[in-house]
């Protein structure tokens, strides 16, 4: 394990000198091992080909694709509204974000306006989803470091978020809540009070997680000064999200290029200082607090009005109209059988997912099915930085780096 002398901030790539043996002239043999694909610390099915010199990582190559399911290809055979449940299954911890970015992209191609209440509902659910994603990350990462109790506590709160999702949309995961033009349905009565009560609880719980980890000597020794990569290098590698913000760069698309209703809330962007694993942990935990703030403001300030656009060419008519209106029946039939058509064109829209910039690129060819759907998944791009983080460090630090990178293999492989 890393000694006290490696705790200094400003970590260099050569931070782990070979101990004793090499100084005495003994040569170390390079050992190449497979790390994964079936290893609990890889957070999915990620295979790393690691070259070790003693306990020091000298080279690393990620192999991915084990859960590649061809979602992008399948999207080309589905009408636009049927793509939503499919695309939610890419990054399975950020399903609201996946659906939101795809719907925003299609809305841009259609030039469809979203009612303000729908924007607020989207923000509330996305921020709850961010809390949920960060809770899963915190629990599994702490477990990788041996702190298994944090895992149980995080999953206790995660379950409450899922209960809220279930109450608002009927599903705990992959909710298909975000629709083109708005959201699927309005929130049930009393849901807002449940959310506010949960926010009070969540803010208290975050303090409890910090109390468990922030003064935990093992956790501090294993995260502080580990895996730092300078900010310019991270930008070169395309890294976004908490990993980048941990180095002090406040790039967050919610603030930098506000979308949906994010310009109407008062929140801060947590940033780190040196960008080591400890900073990454601090940034994400602080983000849970900020997400609570956003949810609270959004629930309290949610405007009245429709939850989905009134454009019947895009959104289904309300159920009760079907019994009385012939026109509604026709629209319903057209939407359910063929779906809506999108004029030819292409667009790229990016939002801030829990792991960084989540982009969606859609090519429309004028038919009711997209000609190309591509998700720029932050995990996929961020994974390239793992090599820079891990080389020169101990193999035990590789686990920490991977955990703090927060890769979701469903998003990487799509």
């Amino acid at each position, binding site marked *: 394990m890393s000694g006290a002398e490696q705790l200094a901030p400003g970590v260099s790539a050569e931070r782990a000198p070979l101990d004793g043996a090499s100084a005495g002239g003994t040569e170390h043999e390079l050992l190449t091992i497979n790390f994964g694909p079936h290893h609990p610390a890889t957070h999915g099915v990620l295979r790393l080909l690691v070259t070790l010199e003693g306990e020091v990582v000298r080279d690393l190559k990620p192999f*991915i694709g084990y859960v590649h399911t061809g979602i992008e290809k399948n999207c080309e055979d589905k009408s636009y509204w049927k793509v939503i449940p499919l695309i939610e299954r890419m990054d399975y911890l950020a399903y609201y974000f996946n659906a939101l970015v795809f719907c925003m992209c299609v809305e841009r191609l259609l030039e469809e306006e979203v009612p303000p209440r729908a924007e607020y509902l989207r923000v509330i659910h996305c921020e709850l989803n961010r809390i949920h994603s960060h809770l899963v990350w915190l629990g599994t990462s702490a477990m990788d470091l041996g702190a298994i109790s944090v895992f149980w506590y995080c999953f206790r709160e995660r379950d409450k978020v899922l209960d809220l999702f279930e109450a608002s949309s009927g599903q705990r995961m992959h909710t298909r809540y975000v629709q083109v033009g708005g959201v699927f349905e309005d929130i049930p009565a009393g849901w807002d009070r449940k959310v506010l009560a949960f926010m009070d609880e969540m803010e208290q719980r975050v303090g409890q997680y910090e109390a468990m980890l922030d003064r935990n000597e093992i956790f501090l020794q294993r995260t502080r000064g580990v895996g730092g990569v300078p900010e310019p290098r991270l*930008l*070169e590698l*395309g890294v976004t999200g908490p990993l980048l913000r941990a180095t002090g760069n406040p790039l967050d698309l919610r603030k930098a*290029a506000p979308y949906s209703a994010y310009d109407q809330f008062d929140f801060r962007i947590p940033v780190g200082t040196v960008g080591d694993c400890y900073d990454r942990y601090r940034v994400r935990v602080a983000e849970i607090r900020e997400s609570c703030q956003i949810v609270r403001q959004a629930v309290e300030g949610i405007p009245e009005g429709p939850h989905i656009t009134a454009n019947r060419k895009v959104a289904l008519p309300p159920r009760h109209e079907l019994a009385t209106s012939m026109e509604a029946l026709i629209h319903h039939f057209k939407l359910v059988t063929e779906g809506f058509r999108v004029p030819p064109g292409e667009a790229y829209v990016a939002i801030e997912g829990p792991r960084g910039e989540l982009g969606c690129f859609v*090519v429309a060819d004028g038919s009711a099915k997209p000609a190309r759907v*591509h998700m720029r998944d932050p995990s996929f*791009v961020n994974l*390239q930085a793992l090599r820079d983080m891990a080389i020169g460090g101990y193999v035990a630090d590789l686990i920490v780096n991977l955990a703090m990178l927060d890769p979701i293999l469903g998003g990487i492989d799509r």
Partner: protein
Amino acid sequence: MPDPTGLELIAHELREHVAGSVADTQYYRGVATLVVNPERSLDVLRWLRDAPAQRYTFLSSLHGADYLPHEPRFGVHYELLNLDRIERIHVKALLADPGDLELPEIDSCIEIFPSADFQEREVYDMFGVRFRGHPDLRRILMPEDYEGFPQRRDFPLGGEPVLFTHNEHELPRWYE
């Protein structure tokens, strides 16, 4: 995003600095697109990154597309981001299908934007676009012995045999 006028100014300056680089400009739904000559794509990207007035230093996404009935058939898209102004510009290079078993080729931009590494491999894997100068151009998501490029529009959907115990005898020597 640069507005239509800004896009034309960028295209005009680009034509001066890199001759024969910009084939077309498109402005659609608020997205500014430079359609560039694939032979000069590297010069364009380098100019967009380094010119003091542009500074599109961050490659946020690189992806491919197949516009099958149209010619040229393949598109390689670069989504560039200016980190100071949070301005995006979309650079698109269109590649013709050389036919037969030849693969379309374009220069790899990995020297300019190291983050393109995985994403160029993905485009190669899915569309069969060969990136000249990429140090490690292998399949990334599909198995390494896979034949064909699944995201091409003429690649059929489905038809992949999936191995279960009831049909493993239909795939002789599958375990090798």
